[in-house]
């Protein structure tokens, strides 16, 4: 089985503090891993490390093409949501449908609520078609319907041979294995 994300003896230090070391795991097709831990334990840093946006102090990270949804929306605030999403390419209408925001296509991004913005960020990830998804707090600001849809897209992605690394302190719908980071 080919691995989509592999951490080998990874250590990360931020602001002079060692967040973790000797971290090892592999994500293959159809596998998900939930990173948990208290605030400040390095969940988001681990996600950025997996994305290649941070470099580890020690060890190696191998990754396949990926898509990232974190706190930064990365959509032009003055554009209608549909056009803003299509800048990043992929099957935008289907992704918006999956997240239940198809009716917002003509609404400017700056007018979205925080829950709608979260759905938009997840729609960008779905549309990308990347095999590896990195999700930072995917359930934040979502209502019951939103959480259900996230569970659905996660299940679909895993069934289609994708892999997911998600940082969340809330239980994820599919209850994947957990990686606990210390504070």
């Amino acid at each position, binding site marked *: 089985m080919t691995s989509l994300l592999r951490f080998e003896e990874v250590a990360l230090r931020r602001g002079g503090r060692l967040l973790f070391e000797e971290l090892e795991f592999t994500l293959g097709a159809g596998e998900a891993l939930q990173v948990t831990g208290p605030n400040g334990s390095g969940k988001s840093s681990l996600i*950025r490390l997996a*994305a*290649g*946006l*941070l470099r580890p102090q020690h060890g190696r990270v191998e990754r396949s*093409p*990926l*898509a*990232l949804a*974190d*706190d*930064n*929306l*990365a*959509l*032009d*605030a*003055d554009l209608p949501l549909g056009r803003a999403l299509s*800048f*990043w390419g992929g099957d935008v209408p289907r992704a918006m449908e999956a997240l239940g925001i198809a009716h917002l296509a003509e609404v400017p991004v700056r007018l979205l609520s925080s829950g709608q913005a979260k759905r938009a960020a997840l729609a*960008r990830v779905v549309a990308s078609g990347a095999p590896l998804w990195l999700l930072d707090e995917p359930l934040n600001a979502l209502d019951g319907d939103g959480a259900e849809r996230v569970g659905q897209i996660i299940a679909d992605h895993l069934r289609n041979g994708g892999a997911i690394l998600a940082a969340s302190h809330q239980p994820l719908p599919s209850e994947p294995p957990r990686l606990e980071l210390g504070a």
Partner: protein
Amino acid sequence: MTAKLIARDLRRAFTGAAWLPIVFFLLVAALVPFAIGPDARLLSRVGPGALWIAALTAALLPVERLVEPDRAGGVLDQLFLNGMAEESVAFAKIVAHWLSFAPLLLVAAVPASALLALDGRALATTEIALLIGTPGLASLALAIAAVTAGLPRAGSLAGLLLLPLAVPLLIFGAADAYLLEGAVSLLLTAGAPFVTGAAIRATRT
């Protein structure tokens, strides 16, 4: 992706305030006769230099929105994840920035030259000098925008960094020394994508 990014940055510049630096440029040019008096001979002597100073300060205006909004909004991260090298991002942004202010500046130089009592020949040489110098100016502005992105009071800091570094362009441009000005402009344009790329990588936290 590069063409898409250029088109997107251009759209942002023109739906934003692309005309603001141009109005500023004209305003500075209009102030010069008030400052040194209406003597046409004196005005036409200092005119080309005044146009250059106006162009420099106009180029400085948009520096804060060239890189910082895209860094804070995660756009630079997503471009990296889409496989675009930071240097390519920088190149696309330089092209878009140049297109958003240089053609307008060249047009605005015509009414500005009338305010400064420049004759047709002086206007033509200044236009050519601006055409040669503005790519270097755009590159410099972008590199400095990236270096100062995310810092407090980035706007004032950018001014302190940009104006001294633009002095060679100013000297050769105002003296109509096209070859030397072209060399400086080329050097800045060739070097800026790498400086900008390194600065973008360094701002990632």
